[in-house]
């Protein structure tokens, strides 16, 4: 009985999801292996994956209020635009796009979720209230959302990553190369894999950062009221400098913070290993924890 009702529920959900998208659109166009692919969609989903073919494949499920999908390819530039009725602020399209894996990808959306996988070229992904999920390889990546979350999976390869969200959380796994991440009140959860330069900033969200830095790397993190928890090891060690105006400072290597001579505030500084890298942590009222091992 229970299994039967479960199956009926699942079937109902499937039918509802199918009914939400009234039309289907499919198209393939030739594209250059290292061309630029530009995608825009108002709401729904945008899933982009890289493949070995020199063509762009678009599969779209369209909801009410969507006029159609315009696909054009000229020279090294492919454009995919979901056209909505001017008055429509709801509805949208579920897009599944395959692009040559070394393409440069440019995605913009309003409330659509954006996800990418196996794309090796430069990626610029932005959405307003949707979530962004991306895999990064060795090329530069720029990710932006206002109220959505950001999830980035790296491979420890040196790349330049800039990712920001206003209200959502930001998760980065295996970040290598140069990393710049920021939130306002979302949490920043970052795992590093041989990063060369890290800049992380949050206002009231907490930052949790662990993993490894490369030789001579720099790590700078600051918050106003969010706590900073940094557990990182670096080839050649690092010099550290931690300051907090009214928050507490603690570490895992038995160093004691000193209180400033004039006014409030405390500071912890010193060197781990040979001090090749540099770690600088700043906060107004958040607590700071620093450890020299992940």
């Amino acid at each position, binding site marked *: 009985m229970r299994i039967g009702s479960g199956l009926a529920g699942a079937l109902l959900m499937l039918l509802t999801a199918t009914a939400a998208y009234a039309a289907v659109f499919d198209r393939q166009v030739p594209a250059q292996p290292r061309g630029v692919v530009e995608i*825009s*969609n*108002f709401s729904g989903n945008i899933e982009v994956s890289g493949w070995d073919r020199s063509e762009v494949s678009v599969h779209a499920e369209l909801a009410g209020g969507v006029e159609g999908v315009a696909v054009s390819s000229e020279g090294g530039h492919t454009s995919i*635009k*979901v*056209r*909505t009725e001017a008055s429509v*602020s709801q509805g949208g399209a579920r897009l599944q796009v395959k692009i040559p894996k070394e393409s440069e990808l440019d*995605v*913009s*959306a*309003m*409330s659509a979720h954006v996800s990418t996988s196996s794309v090796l070229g430069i990626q610029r992904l*932005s*959405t*307003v*209230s949707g979530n962004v999920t991306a895999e990064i390889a060795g090329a530069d990546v720029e990710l*932006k*959302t*206002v*109220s959505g979350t950001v999830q980035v999976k790296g491979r420890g390869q040196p790349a330049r990553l800039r990712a*920001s969200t*206003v*209200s*959502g959380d930001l998760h980065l796994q295996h970040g290598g190369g140069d990393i710049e991440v*920021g939130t*306002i*009140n979302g949490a920043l959860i970052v795992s590093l894999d041989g990063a060369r330069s890290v800049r992380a*900033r949050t*206002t*009231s969200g907490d930052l949790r950062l662990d993993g490894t830095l490369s030789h001579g790397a720099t790590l700078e993190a*600051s918050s*106003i*009221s969010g706590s900073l928890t940094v557990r990182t090891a670096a080839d050649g060690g690092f010099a550290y400098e931690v*300051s907090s*105006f*009214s928050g507490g400072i603690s570490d895992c290597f038995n160093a004691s913070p000193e209180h400033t001579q*004039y*006014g*409030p*505030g405390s500071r912890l500084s010193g060197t781990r290993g040979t001090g090749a890298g540099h770690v600088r942590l*700043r*906060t*107004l*009222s958040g607590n700071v924890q620093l450890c020299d091992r992940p």
Partner: protein
Amino acid sequence: MTEPSNTDRKVTSLRELPQSIEPRHDLWPGIEARLGDIRAADGATPAQRRAVRMRWLAAAAMVACVAIGVWVGRGLLPGTAGSGTVAVNTSPPQAVQPPVNAVPHEVYVSDPRYQEQRAALVRDLQARLAALPQPQRDKVTASLQAIEKAKADLEEALGHDPSNALLQELLVNTYQDEMRVLTDVHEASDPGRGI
């Protein structure tokens, strides 16, 4: 079962009410006595008047001292530590207001381009937020409130320790973050365009 008294009697017409009612007591003697006290106070001696005036002057001087102290304190806010990145606007800070109606008005950075850009973004904010779905609007509003609180906290801390380089750096960061949020929200509501 008791009969209703005369005062509890149900009135069915205005004509049934008395034309005039005499007060139970004559109130004039009390009023006259109080007026007499006031007149007597007005007839204070010049020495008494001078003493009252001096008390008012002392109070005004105290208020002026406090105001000058606050003004001087504000004058030492960001930009005086040699960073050269920001200058100071000595206008007094305004109360923290709900960000939807008025994201921070107070501007400590005197660069006119910054001021113009920021003012335009703040003017635009309401309309842009209105284009977002309610849950997202609430989230962004909460973020703007977090920035407002951060600024207020930093300004308060700088009031205690105006030359603190850490606080100045964090305040500059917060201004930058506020501009980033305003810019992102501004660029956010073009359908199909995204930020």
